[in-house]
């Protein structure tokens, strides 16, 4: 905690080493590792195994960018910090990018010196209550004590929702999601609120996941995606197009299993994606076949989804019929074309 204040102070005094825009790619290549910021270990999105390896939907994005640059998904140094300091840490150049269920908002995009690249998960805020409380709707939470993470859009939406519905609440806040969840499980609040994906992820790690109910209301829009520092357009392009590439791969039927055969595909869209045709990699400052490395390492969007948060995982977030289905299947996961 101390260290963070020193970082704030250093930022305030303008003493921090100026890590200037336009150079992230060179810095990363020179360093040989990508500093990728994730949150405190959360199942499905940025989970930490006992042997110290990270995995998850957001972690796979770090690995994908590393694969695009180095041809190797493991040249990543994970930086795990609380939600409350994520933007300072990124603005301070402690990390090169942030991939951690972060909501794209106007203030964040325009006033924090940050750039949101794109959206890789469409989420919304919900409430989790103990099943034995008998609560079945968020509208029954009037006068409730609500556990909420500080420094998030969650705490702002919470206030908005109660205000809009003429209800009152008392927030119990913490910047550390683990402390907050402990408080909720200990009965210190009537409900725990977060992005619904986050709730599902946390709940999967509860001692008794079935002892808790997710209320039906979705009270906000939470488009989540990777973020970079503002001012380095080339770097933002790379991160953005790696995500687009992963989405296009699913749409075109390219997966980690068939990517090698697909390199000789006759479909010009696939040929351009995998670099057997055209020079898209050049414009991004990486090898022409960067998407081959990316897909080999992490798979396409659908593979990543099913592996980490899909219905066959403990998190179990269904995809079919939700916003996160491909646009061709009624969702809004859609990427501009590789051409």
């Amino acid at each position, binding site marked *: *905690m101390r260290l963070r*204040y020193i970082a*704030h*102070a250093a*930022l*305030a*005094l*303008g*003493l*921090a080493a*100026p890590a*200037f*825009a336009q150079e992230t790619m060179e810095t990363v290549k020179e360093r040989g590792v990508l500093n990728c910021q994730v949150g405190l270990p959360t199942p499905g999105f940025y989970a930490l195994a006992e042997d110290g390896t990270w995995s998850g939907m957001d972690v796979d994005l770090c690995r994908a960018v590393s694969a695009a640059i180095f041809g190797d998904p493991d040249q990543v140094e994970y930086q795990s910090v609380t*939600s*409350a*300091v994520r*933007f*300072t840490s990124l*603005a301070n150049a402690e990390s090169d990018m942030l991939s951690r269920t972060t909501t794209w908002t106007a*203030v*964040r995009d325009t*006033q*924090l*010196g940050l750039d949101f690249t794109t959206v890789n998960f469409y989420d919304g805020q919900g409430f989790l209550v103990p099943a034995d409380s008998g609560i079945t709707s968020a509208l029954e*939470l*009037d*006068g*409730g*004590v609500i556990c909420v993470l*500080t*420094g998030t859009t969650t*705490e*702002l939406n*919470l*206030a*908005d929702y*109660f*205000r809009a519905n003429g209800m009152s*609440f*008392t*927030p*119990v*806040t*913490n*910047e550390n999601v683990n*402390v*907050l969840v*402990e*408080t909720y499980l*200990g*009965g*210190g*609040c*009537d409900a725990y609120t977060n992005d619904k994906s986050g709730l599902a992820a946390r709940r999967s790690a509860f001692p008794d996941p079935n002892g808790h109910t997710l209320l039906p209301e979705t009270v906000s829009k939470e488009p989540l995606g990777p973020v970079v*520092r*503002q*001012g380095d357009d080339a770097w933002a392009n790379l991160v953005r197009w790696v995500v687009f590439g992963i989405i296009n791969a699913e749409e075109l039927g390219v997966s980690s299993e068939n990517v090698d055969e697909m390199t000789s595909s006759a479909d010009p869209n696939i040929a351009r994606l995998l670099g057997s045709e055209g020079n898209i990699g050049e414009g991004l400052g990486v090898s022409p076949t960067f998407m081959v490395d990316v897909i080999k390492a992490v798979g396409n969007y659908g593979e990543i989804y099913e592996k980490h948060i899909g219905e066959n995982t403990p998190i179990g977030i269904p995809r079919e019929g939700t916003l996160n289905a491909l646009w061709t299947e009624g969702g809004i996961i859609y990427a501009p074309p590789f051409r």
Partner: protein
Amino acid sequence: MAVIHNPDPSDSKQRGVTRLFYDARIRSIFIQAITLALVLGFLGWLTLNTMTNLAARNLSAGFDFLDVSAGFGIGFTLIPYQESDTYLRVFFVGIMNTLLVAAVSIVLATVFGLIVGLARLSNNWIIATLSRSYIELIRNTPLLLQIIAWFFGVFVLLPRPRQSVELGEAFFLNNRGFYMPAAVPEPGFGVVTATFLACIVGTIALAIWARRRRDRTGRHFPAFFTGFGAIIVLPLGVHLALGSPLGWELPELKGLNFTGGVSVPPSFCALIVALSAYTSCFIAEIVRSGIQSVSKGQLEAAGALNLPANWTLRRVVLPQALRVIIPPLISQYLNVTKNSSLAIAIGFPDLVSVWMNTSLNQSGRAIPIVAMTMAFYCLVSISVSLVMNYYNARAQIKER
């Protein structure tokens, strides 16, 4: 061989310059000027560097965000606050919460520290050992750990609202907080308050008069006890005479939680208990050393004069002990204020939590927010040292 000393005209001028350098007053002015220039230059460079860095990072600076509405809820506020209030309001909410924690902890720590400190001097072996173990145990455990232990080990584990611990249908303790009745003044209560204030002013005047008279005539008047009695008895009398113009609003269980009355969250309770216990240990040691610093001869002299025991304490021991006790005591009070920032670990909305953390993150205005926080803590520290210097100057032994 005679050496003819041929004075060089430039020599005297040089000696003039050298002389200037050897002149302590001029030299010190010179050094001060250079230091000042360096400091100003450094500050200028810092400002410029900050501005360049901020611009390079596309970060917003400036204080214009202060009148933007903050938009988040705060779990406990001493002054009225709602989500649509401004960031500036959040700053004051944080300051008031910090000061409240500090004030309550200081009072509790002082009372408890005094008791433990005296117990430590007791001739009774059990009492002395108990208090000593208490001090060693609490003082040598990290404060953060104690705060977290009290929060998770005690206050979060309390029963849920429906099974609250209840005291006379007026006080309730559960894992959402501690609820007590709120006083609601009714017409006429202003008179009681006015009587109370008048009694305080009267007591101060009485004390001054009694001291002057004692200095003049040597006769004693028990101003302290008279005044203290008046402060309690008179307002109480007026209160009863007016038919108790004070209503009480009791907390009651409505829906999910208690409403009405006054309440504090578990994080506040944990913070107060941990902070006061921790600080009371240091205060106990300060009290003990202060009392032990009064030489035995003083007591023997008081005994020889046949002073009654409470006079020996009040007129001989305390004035001398306090001289040793007060300065370190005040710096403990300052420590409490600063240590209260550990509140963030358990989510109590003090200044650091609500301002340096939440507001900074939501608004992204690191510089003004860090600067304002530093200014607050700086102001508190400076005021405390001013009080301390004033006290020290007054409490010096007046040698005659």
